């Protein structure tokens, strides 16, 4: 083998060593050969420079603006699923309904007249006609259910999310380690028992805010457990 051949082979071996150490060097590991060889070999120095440039340029990429139609589509889906409340609450809802200053003036006039009429009715009607709220002695009535959810104890979107996740989980659970599957199953069973218990009370007392809050909380916990189960990819 000629001297030139030996020299070429040695150079290629050095470049091959550089290639082998380069990934670790770029990850921050201690590879002194990489810097040493890059100082001697112009071609490998170019490779190193290029990769460092790619890495640094990629870190500060500007964000891209999505098309405006996205929100329209998302909003429509949320409304169809009942996740967005259909009614606005309180004063904002009234103001939106009328839409502009002229409407507000009309609303104020109408509202004043309605209040006066109501006061008149209360004062003039016989007391026996007035309905009493059926409460037990010494018991304060429970706070009314929030507007917009009068007929639904739990947000429909949350119930649907939980139902969808449960369907996905039933398929996925077959692939889980039996021990892990049992743990999740027992947890979900406990939550289902709580949901059933709260739901029974809500069915009897629909305006019971505390029971509804517990019921919602139980669904949220169940969603969290299902999410943990679905994201579990341990082997």
């Amino acid at each position: 083998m000629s001297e030139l051949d030996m020299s070429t082979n040695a150079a290629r071996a050095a470049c091959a060593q550089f290639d082998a150490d380069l990934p670790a060097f770029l990850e921050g590991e201690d590879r002194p050969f990489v810097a040493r060889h890059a100082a001697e070999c112009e071609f490998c120095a170019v490779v190193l420079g290029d990769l460092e440039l790619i890495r640094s340029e990629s870190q500060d990429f500007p964000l891209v603006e999505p098309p405006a139609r996205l929100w329209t589509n998302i909003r429509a889906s949320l409304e169809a699923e009942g996740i967005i409340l259909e009614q606005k609450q309180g004063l904002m809802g009234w103001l939106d309904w009328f839409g502009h200053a002229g409407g507000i003036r009309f609303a104020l006039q109408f509202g004043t007249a309605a209040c006066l009429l109501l006061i008149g009715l209360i004062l003039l009607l016989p007391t026996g006609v007035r309905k009493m709220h059926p409460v037990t002695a010494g018991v304060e009535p429970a706070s009314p259910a929030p507007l917009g959810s009068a007929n639904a104890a739990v947000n429909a979107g949350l119930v649907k999310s939980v139902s969808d996740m449960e369907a996905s989980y039933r398929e996925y659970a077959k692939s889980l380690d039996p021990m892990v599957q049992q743990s999740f199953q027992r947890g979900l069973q406990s939550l289902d028992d709580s949901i059933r218990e709260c739901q029974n009370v809500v069915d009897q007392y629909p305006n019971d805010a505390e029971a509804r809050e517990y019921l919602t909380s139980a669904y949220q916990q169940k969603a969290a457990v299902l999410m943990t189960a679905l994201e579990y990819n341990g082997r």
Partner: protein
Amino acid sequence: MSSDKKVTTKAASDSQLIARAQKGDEEAFASLFEAHKRRVYSLCLRMTGNVAEAEDLTQEAFLQLFRKIGTFRGESAFSTWLHRLVVNVVLMHLRKKGLQQVSLDETDPTLEEPVKRDYGDDDRRLIGSIDRITLARAIGKLPPGYRAVFVLHDMEGYEHNEIAGILNCSVGNSKSQLHKARMKLREALRAGRSEGETEENRETTPSVG
């Protein structure tokens, strides 16, 4: 960024918006969308390399977010939770498309294609000859598996142990795929530069092998 500032001054922090969104407040949903839409869309675009897919996935990610927002308990930062959700949505989509390259299962290193390098090649560095548009285009053309690791690590700042958990591979695998992704990008950028040159005609030396 001006619309983001508007959201911040008008509404409140993410936690207040989330609390309102959990009660079905449309304005809160809209504000959360405004605050995070560019980050989500950019991530979807970078991981898919396709505008139409990125739009669909952004929409899907936000719908999932708003459906699940009742389950957010504030244990982690909302942006972290959202980011993870978006990555999962994109990966599910890529896997459904049956793109095997997304799976980064351990492979026999002897069967893998070696990273090509042209020794004694064109010695000009890329610096000064590439721009972000060119780079973005090149990233979009990477195979899905390489692109996923590259985007997650170099662009989104995930660490290898996190990528390993997301993509269900080993840390070593994630590191080697990242290096290959960078080398592929380098190849693509250099090839693109050569095609663009009309004044000079340079020969490349045959690759070693």
